[in-house]
């Protein structure tokens, strides 16, 4: 080492220091991405060698009603839960942003549900949603609403999961709060002087200047929501009544680890990755004109 020039030596050390990541990248990311593609062209039960079957797995997907069902479930759930979670997170952040006394206490209260492991949350909410003895329908009954069967109903299981998601809006709230704190107060003050109403200020100042935050939350939320697994697995059992909560990843899990169809599961996973990638790109493109980056 001592015979190297300082420059070469630094480069060598640089590579040495990043070598853990390089190895990890090759073994756990790049390798597997290519392997998934290869496995998706085979029939493979893990035990024994893979058998090349070309596009048969993809052809099977086209005729598989459960594939469409899982796409529908995941898409509908995302449409429901994503806006709901964003709206709730924003509402909480706006409420806390107005010089509230005891801000840290409220923030803690709203954020606490987000730190509970999802398995525990899901188990708790099965009991909350119990149609006869659960607290949810009891509270609804106080408002004269006779609650549905929730997790036992093909129509209500996904809304039930989305409503449970609101309980985890705390992390969205925290990020929105930080976004709000980045906006210079003079903007609102100037608008107030000009006689703008609260509603006008919200739509013409707060929302546009928060758009980078919303965009970030929307993209990460979309990617997360398309990969929903735990809540569906715990609360819907094997996919809920009549597969009403057969999430895409759940179906992939069943194909791969219940029936050991690794080839078909890989085709499903590769397709999901393409869908996620395409949607993300679409969102990024569509948002270009609408996201305001002036403050960054």
């Amino acid at each position, binding site marked *: 080492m001592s015979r190297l020039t300082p420059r070469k030596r630094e480069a060598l050390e640089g590579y040495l220091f990043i070598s853990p990541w390089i190895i990890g990248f090759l073994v756990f990311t790049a390798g597997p991405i290519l392997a998934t593609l290869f496995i998706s062209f085979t029939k493979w039960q893990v035990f024994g060698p893979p058998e090349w079957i070309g596009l048969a797995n993809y052809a099977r997907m086209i005729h598989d009603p459960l594939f469409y069902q899982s796409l529908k479930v995941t898409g509908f759930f995302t449409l429901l839960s994503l806006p709901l979670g964003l709206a709730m997170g924003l509402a909480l952040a706006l409420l806390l942003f107005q010089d509230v006394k005891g801000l840290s206490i409220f923030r803690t209260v709203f954020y606490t549900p987000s730190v509970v492991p999802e398995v525990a949350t899901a188990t708790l909410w099965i009991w*909350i949603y119990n149609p006869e003895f659960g607290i949810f329908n009891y509270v609804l009954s106080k408002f004269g609403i006779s609650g549905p069967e929730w997790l036992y109903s093909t129509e209500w299981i996904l809304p039930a999961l989305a409503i449970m998601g609101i309980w985890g809006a705390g992390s969205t709230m925290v990020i929105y709060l930080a976004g709000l704190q980045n906006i210079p107060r003079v903007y609102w003050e100037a608008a107030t002087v000009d006689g703008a109403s609260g509603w006008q200020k919200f739509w013409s100042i707060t929302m546009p200047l928060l758009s980078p*935050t919303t965009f970030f939350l929307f993209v990460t939320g979309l990617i997360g929501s398309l990969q929903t697994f735990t809540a569906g697995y715990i609360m819907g059992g094997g996919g809920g009544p009549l597969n009403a909560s057969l999430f895409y990843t759940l179906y992939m899990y069943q194909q791969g680890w219940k029936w050991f169809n690794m080839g078909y599961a890989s085709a499903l996973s590769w397709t999901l990755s393409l869908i996620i990638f395409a949607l993300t790109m679409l969102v990024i493109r569509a948002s270009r004109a609408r996201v305001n980056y002036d403050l960054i």
Partner: protein
Amino acid sequence: MRTVKKVMQYAILVLLALVFMMPFLWMISTSLKGGADDLFTYPPQIIPKSFHWENYRKVLSMYPWGVFLKNTSLITFISMFATLLSSAMVAFSFARLRFPGRDKIFFLVLSTMMVPYYTTLIPQYILFSKLGWVNTLKPLIVPNFFGAAFYIFLLRQHFMGIPPELDDSAKIDGASTMRIFGSIYLPLAKPALITIGILQFMSAWSDFIGPLIYLHSEKNYTLTLALNTFRGIHYTDWHYLMAGTMMVALPSLIFFFVGQNYIIGGITVSGIK
């Protein structure tokens, strides 16, 4: 007018706070109830008729929770240590060392954050099964020794804020790169390291799909996996189930209350550039 608005605002906040606390209260209350007569009542009782603290003792004796706690802690703490050290090393190199292709490789690091979790799951599983690691804790621990893109990104930002004059003077004194990393950069990045440690704790502690796929025999279960099986066995004993749920949730809650500012800080940096 202003007072009315303020009162309204607090009323809404208090109401929402109650709504957010309700599930916790319901969990605690159910975990202390007596049994079927106490559980299946209408209207539901928030305050139990009598407090059955022994439920917790019973749940502890029903299932070897101690073993699950040990497995979960083992995975969580080793992976925390491993990911901190490896991510910091990689981040330091990207922030301070000069080598050809550095910025291109860093871009690659960032782009791996976009790869969905499920894309790599199957080949990883097959790899670990060929290695004979399925049904051991290794698949959940070992990958953490190779740095995590998001943590590398955060730490790099942090390291770049440290004045480079510090290492110049250390270099003149003859300190090696490893030494500069270990005795200048790591100590100065303490707040970022704590934040990342907490984020890693939360995600490893709560992980479900990893244990579900890799751990098959009960002696290897983690707490989350055990709770799922426990639910399968005692699916109508809601008082026991809620006591068990409480026990699984409690360490995260305690950890949160202790490290609150770091956690909220961490979530904030993860959302804002």
